[in-house]
């Protein structure tokens, strides 16, 4: 059951691709028919920037069943460089790096497994930004 659901969302989960309303600019992570903010029906596909800053974070201690074996894990609210605010798990952070305002970048990671026989779902998480040489 979950295979097609994951497949439908793969552009956003793998590449942070979504749809921006042509009229008001609201971002939608899955292809909408109507803009949730202004009601417009025109969108353009956009790939969100992969870097941004951490606005706030928390640690999940008692997780939902799909994430039971992953707890504790970090969840953050990130403002991407184009101003889009999105939620995501945080990964690869040391205690020292974990600060509100920290620069982050999206990386592809394993999110969860659908039991013993289902698929393994991948998607973006945020890690501290690694400065690449120019």
């Amino acid at each position, binding site marked *: 059951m979950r295979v097609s*659901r994951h497949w439908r*969302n793969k552009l956003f*989960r793998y590449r942070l691709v979504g749809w921006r309303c042509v009229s008001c600019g*609201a971002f939608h*992570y*899955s292809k909408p028919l109507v803009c*949730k903010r202004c009601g417009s029906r025109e969108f353009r596909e956009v790939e969100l920037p992969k870097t941004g800053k951490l*606005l*706030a*974070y*928390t*640690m*999940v*201690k*008692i*997780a*939902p*069943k*799909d*994430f*039971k074996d*992953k707890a504790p*894990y970090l*969840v953050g*609210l990130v403002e991407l460089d184009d101003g889009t*605010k*999105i*939620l*995501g*798990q945080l990964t690869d952070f040391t205690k020292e790096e974990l600060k*509100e305002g920290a620069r982050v970048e999206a990386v592809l990671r394993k*999110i*969860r497994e659908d039991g013993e026989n289902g698929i393994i*779902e991948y*998607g973006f998480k945020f890690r501290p930004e690694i400065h690449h040489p120019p």
Partner: protein
Amino acid sequence: MGKVYVAGVGLTKIGEHWDKGLEQLMVEAALKALDDSGLSRVNSIYVGNMAGEFLQEQAHLGAIIAEDLGMVGTPAYRVEAANASGAAAIHAGALEIASGRADAVLVIGGEKLSDGLIEEVSSALLMGERQEYEGFMGADFYSINALLYKLYMRRYEVKDDLIAVFPMLSHKHAKGVAHAQYPFEVSLEKILSSPYISEPLRRFEVSGVGDGAAAIVLIGEELKSKIKTPKTELYISSATDFMTPFEREDPLRFQSLGVAVNKVLDEAKVDRGDVDLIEVHDATSIMAAISLESSGFAEPGESGRLAMRGEFDLGGRLPYNTFGGLKARGNPFGATGVYQVAELHLQLTGRAGKNQVDSPRVGMAQSLGGVGATAIVTLLKAV
């Protein structure tokens, strides 16, 4: 639109009812409410329940409850709006009375969370968010609340004690309440030294896992003059907001709640200052603070200070969660909205026992689905 009255209420004690099923709890509450009203038949039944399809793998609760009540033949539906399912069922029932289609409606809210493991209860709660977004991130209900908590402390430059004061208050009011899950006081120190469930949100700042059912009987004008039982007049309004708080204009404001509160005050022709007591949806401490501020009962960032000053005590300016709220009376998801309204009814009919507020005329109950994506506000007036 015809007037709607509450004519009877029934509550079960919230707790871990290992020996009773969801259906049994609902029937128990329903029979108490019917007995309280003096009625034995109704035109329709509305059942509020959030997680039965997941935790009990049971849909079709309307017909099941009608059968278990010996009322086969009576129309009966389940209504769902996440944590506000109970209030949504009241809304549906009230509309049928107001339309004139029914003169007596039974509304039952029930939830049995102890049938699930703790991670299943977390998953059930997460179903009130978007599975394709928060669900995929593992960003559970409490983590969203924790992020709001941090933004709140930063914006208003307050410490956690001004937020953790709300669970303390709920526990204070639950003390000795027969139907409460946690009928005892908990000090602010104890709350602030409990472990994090999702930092900065602590274990004692969130409602627990419990089973329970509550029921109310709604009647219209025609029956009102015929039955002698104490009655209150009911008004109810609802609104929605963006699912994710971080997509709202202001994540620290439940706009749905503000809108629903204004609508219900308008319909009931009541001023905010006339509200004598309030039931707030304190699924978490931070939701209590944001709720009071979003609905105009406290200035933004000020609710904690008002609580510290005693304004929300039983004898204060606006008594709050007079039987313990979600935190201490308990929060069996789909039942909670019905508990709130039943408790207001007890207050306004002078049957609140040692928790009785001094001769109240108007009470308000706020029920939220998710983190405020649904808000349903009920106002009761003494008759």
